């Protein structure tokens, strides 16, 4: 994509890409612009999603949530951002100044760099690397260094605890995360993100998650371990408020604090889109093959891009909402339980899935009866879980609604546009 855009610009300028000597300049410019686009995306995702999360949490906790800045509080994130931006950037006197100042950028950089290989639509990807998934797993290692650096350089014992916990947690959970994604790589036969999506179809029974029971299990393992990598409840030990005050960023304020928050909520997107790409069929539209989209031209091409973008964002948003709901439902694990969860359950589970996928690949021919039977079983399991989830949520909601109506004489739920 990068090369394509560079070539297209050069052609637009009347230059022949094949012979143009300074082609690298256009490439650098394009890289810069794309980085800017990714950054703006993170800002415009992480910001509003904080508002969304707070509103959703409000609903879960039967309160309203931010609703003062802008209509229904949608601009709350801007107000928060401006507040942080204008605050004093406090550096503790005893801190290791250089490391302290640099750490937030490393954490943020670790997450932002993943956007280089994250697809948004049929052709909307900064760089479709052949080793996309490997790059993604590797580059998030920067986050470990960043949070450890922040924890150490703050010269605060709570921050140090947070940093060490963060390092231990991230390093441990990389393993089940990587293994469960490796089963996808086996099934897809490629590490390229777009390649993995193209190996799946648009309909749910073509998605990897419902391809066979092992991949079905791997989906949950992968989601769990990426939630853990993202430091979100029930795995938010590095910043567990009631234990470590705020963890590795306890001393940070102002804009540097904001970088951590950017990274945290930007990471929500990373979690959701990795799962969407690897298991949920990415941006695929039913009835339209990737080749057809690539072959279309002009307005139709961009129309398809927009449509695929929409599909992708919709799938990812569902996952984001799920992760948010998990956060506001579950309590936090203890540090030894965290490690037990990883090493005793997730790692063996992921290895089991990997082995299972290997065996199935060798034994079950694609599109045979056995293959479709496996898909049917997985799909049925998935549907059962989804139905049970919706039904339980609805039952709990109905019970609560009746209670509330009896007590207060008014409706518990009111549509957002009528919020007080």
């Amino acid at each position, binding site marked *: 994509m990068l090369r394509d855009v560079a070539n297209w610009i050069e052609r637009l300028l009347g230059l022949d890409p094949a012979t143009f000597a300074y082609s690298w300049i256009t490439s650098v410019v394009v890289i810069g612009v794309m980085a800017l686009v990714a950054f703006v995306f993170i800002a415009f995702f992480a910001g509003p999603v904080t508002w969304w999360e707070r509103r959703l949490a409000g609903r879960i906790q039967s309160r309203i949530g931010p609703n003062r800045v802008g209509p229904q509080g949608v601009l709350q994130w801007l107000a928060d951002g401006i507040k942080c931006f204008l605050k004093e950037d406090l550096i503790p006197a005893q801190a290791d100044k250089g490391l302290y100042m640099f750490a937030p950028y490393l954490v943020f950089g670790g997450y932002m760099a993943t956007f280089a290989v994250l697809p948004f639509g049929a052709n909307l990807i900064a760089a479709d690397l052949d080793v996309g998934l490997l790059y993604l797993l590797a580059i998030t290692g920067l986050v470990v260094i960043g949070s450890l650096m922040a924890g150490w350089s703050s010269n605060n014992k709570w921050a140090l605890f947070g940093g060490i916990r963060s390092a231990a947690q991230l390093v441990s959970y990389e393993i089940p995360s990587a293994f469960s994604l490796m089963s996808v790589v086996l099934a897809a036969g490629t590490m390229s993100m777009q390649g993995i999506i193209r190996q799946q179809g648009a309909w749910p029974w073509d998605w990897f998650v419902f391809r066979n029971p092992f991949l079905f299990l791997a989906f949950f393992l992968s989601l769990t371990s990426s939630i853990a990598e993202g430091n979100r409840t029930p795995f938010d030990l590095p910043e567990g408020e009631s234990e470590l005050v705020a963890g590795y960023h306890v001393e940070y304020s102002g804009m540097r604090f904001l970088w951590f928050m950017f990274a945290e909520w930007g990471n929500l997107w990373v979690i959701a889109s990795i799962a969407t790409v690897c298991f949920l069929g990415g941006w695929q539209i039913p009835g339209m093959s990737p080749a057809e989209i690539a072959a279309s031209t002009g307005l139709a091409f961009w129309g398809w891009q927009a449509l695929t973008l929409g599909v992708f964002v919709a799938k990812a948003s569902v996952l984001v909402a799920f992760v948010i709901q998990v956060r506001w439902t579950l309590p936090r694990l203890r540090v030894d339980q965290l490690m037990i969860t990883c090493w005793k359950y997730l790692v063996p589970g992921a290895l089991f899935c990997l082995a299972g996928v290997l065996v199935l690949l060798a034994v079950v021919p694609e599109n045979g009866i056995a293959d479709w039977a496996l898909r049917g079983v997985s799909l049925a399991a998935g549907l059962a879980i989804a139905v049970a989830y919706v039904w339980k949520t609805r039952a709990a909601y109905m019970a609560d609604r009746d209670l509330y109506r*009896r007590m207060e004489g008014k409706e518990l739920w009111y549509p957002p546009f009528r919020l007080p």
Partner: protein
Amino acid sequence: MTFAEITQRLGTAFPDGIEVVEDTLMDPAVRIRADLAHAVCLWLRDDPDLHMDTLRVITATDRPPESIDVVWHLLSMRHRHTLVLKARLPRETPDVSTVSDLWASANWFEREQWDLMGVNFTGHPDLRRLMMPIDWVGHPLRKDYVRPDSYHGIPTSRDAVTPVTRAEIPRHLPKAEPTDDLMLINMGPVHPATHGVLNFLLETDGEIVRHAKPDVGYLHRSIEKIAEMNTYAGTMPYTDRVDYLGGMMTNQGWAMACERLLGIEVPRRAEFCRVIACELNRIASHLVGTGSMSMDLGAYTPFIHWLRERETINDIMERICGARLTYTYMRIGGVCRDIDRETLDKISAWLDHFEPICAEFDRLITGNEIFVHRLANVAVLTKEVALSYSIVGPNLRASGVKWDLRRDEPYSVYPELDFDIPVGLGWRGTVGDCYDRLLLRLFEIRECIKILRQAIAMIPDGEVRAKVPRILKPAANEAYGRVEAPRGEAGFYVTSDGTDKPWRVRIRTGCFTAMPVIEHMSPGLMIADIVAVIGSLDVIAPEVDR
């Protein structure tokens, strides 16, 4: 065993030990020879027929010019009898032997009495100041105490105009870094998990805590001293500051102590009003206790749901007494105003609404597997340790001791009401672990609902305040009013001297004895467990420090 039998046995065992058998308005009291204190206590504790397993409180009363009285309130939970031991010490050399080797709770009681009254407990392992800073001079509760004008350049008087300069203030405890590869870390005084101003000095080996030392006194408002300067009725507003989550109960404790001193009979309707207000308050307190505990463990939602319910209680309280947190609802001889029929209906309606919410809370968090694993088998408080540390209230019951003042030392109209006393059974782990303490509170909430329903049905018509003289001047005597507060026994030991102000007030709260037990349980726990322990013991700072 009756008091006469106890004194007779005591007289046989220590022929020249008993000086006076006192006739006061509190539990039967015996004054013994001071040098025999330890021997008598040991005998009382170990004699199988007496078996004084609990030390309720140690009080020192200054009686200038010649003496200081030390008072031990003893209780046998097994045989259900009480005894008050007294010893008269010379004021110049108030030395008495420590009993901290007999009851672990005596450690802090004696430290506090040494700090505030200057009684020297010989043989005490760690006789340091507890409430005041370590370099404070003098003992503030003595009658002839003169307040210094300043402390390290900080004026102690309210109307001082001298500017405060930044001074080197010595810390509460010497903070030497531990040597053997342990890290010393301050959990508090301002830490999200300590709910107020508590400090724990943790010596940690990585995540594992080797030793947690509680450091209290940050919220010491000297309510005992304030009470000495106030009239009996005027002390009432201070008592609900003792425990801001259970203000009704501390109100009632004070009112009961004063009523006993003055011999006032409380009208029946007032007793019912008190019970209704107290049980509502108990629910509110347990809601905050269990809710904030779940918040400490990372689950925010249950806490907010509980606070939503507590909000209704606050509204009801506002209807009852006009205040939402510090009620001052009780008066000596009754309550300040009646609970009208409309409010009672509101309470009934709320109870109907609230009962299913309890089940909702259980669905949300109590049965949650992560939550159970965080709490079950963590920080087990065995029966023996709990008794030795004088743990009271839900924490004691969670350890398997069925002791509730509402049932065992009945007061008010509780004997007429039908309710159960839940006891820890090790529901998901061991008896006396954090999960038991949590679950027990949730069960108690349901018992409170039962009590409230009965009380609302049974409340008679009539006056809500007895005829009480305008100026209260009880004759010189002593009384001990105690109630079952949400965090255990709230006891007010009042000594009067015939004037309109109490001579000495001693407040015994549940949290004061729950604090040192954390030190006992801490070795081997993880930092996250310490948070769970503080939450499960439901320790709040103002009750510890008073």
